[in-house]
């Protein structure tokens, strides 16, 4: 119920921002369609922790800026590699074990790896990730496990305070 209400509020805010209509008849239609979507999602039975991972939202605010910084740094690194005449790449395929326990956190970790240029997640089997890396630097960055620890911290905080679960 709580989750449904939250989804409704989120959808309605997004609707308002995208439409820019603030007159009452149109807003009523907007609210009705948002309510319809919430009912549909409930009926499908997919209104759960995975569809709306609200419990991750607070710590996510700490992780996102760090991820942005990493993305910018690795972008510059890969751009340098591309512009270097000798093309100094060293492609490797690495299998690593993620320390997260929930699927949502693994998705965040796998997507973070792919978002960072120089590394891309090929396959996920349980907690085993298969990652392709472009240069030795990008492989070492991955093997240092800092991203893994930070994603785990996002998850750990969630299970500790138990928001909306």
């Amino acid at each position, binding site marked *: 119920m709580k989750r449904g209400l939250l989804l409704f509020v989120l959808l309605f805010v*997004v609707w308002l*921002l*995208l439409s*820019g209509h603030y007159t009452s008849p149109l807003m009523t239609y907007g609210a009705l369609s948002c309510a319809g979507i919430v009912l549909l999602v409930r009926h499908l039975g997919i209104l759960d922790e995975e569809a709306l991972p609200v419990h991750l939202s607070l710590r996510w605010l700490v992780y996102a800026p760090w991820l942005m910084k990493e*993305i*910018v740094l690795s*972008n*510059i690194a*890969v*751009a340098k590699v*591309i*512009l270097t005449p000798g*093309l100094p*790449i*060293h*492609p*490797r*395929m*690495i*299998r*690593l*074990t993620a320390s997260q326990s929930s699927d949502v956190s693994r998705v965040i970790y*796998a*997507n*973070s790896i*792919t*978002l*960072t*240029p*120089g*590394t*891309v*997640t*090929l*396959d996920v089997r349980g907690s085993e990730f*298969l990652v*392709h890396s*472009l240069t030795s630097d990008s492989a*070492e960055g991955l*093997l*240092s*496990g800092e991203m893994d620890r930070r994603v785990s911290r996002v998850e750990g905080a969630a299970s500790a305070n138990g928001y909306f679960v």
Partner: protein
Amino acid sequence: MEGLREIAVWICLIAGGAFSVIGGIGLVRMPDFYTRSHAASITDTLGAGLILLGLGLHSGLNLITVKLVFIFLFLYITSPTAAHALVKAAYSKGLDAPDIEEATGAARAIRNEALAVSRKGRGH
């Protein structure tokens, strides 16, 4: 103040455009499918991000900027998903890829690193 904003807008747009072009150059220069996907991700992340940032600065604080923020968020969820789908499809179809190295802990990773270097030498 207005002049400063104009300058910031142009820096963002030009840098974004430059990163997109670098991504394109990488796409041509890289030797195989997997390495090309790394080059393409430059265009997806910093290229698109900087262009959106420049456009957002240009339009100021209004609904257009909010929509740009939405585009940014959607892009940051969909582009790694698409990249993952592409490389996974290529890999499962048996496209040539480097040998898999196991790395379950930091110590093992470092040992593997040393092994890989001694086995293969520098060239690949």
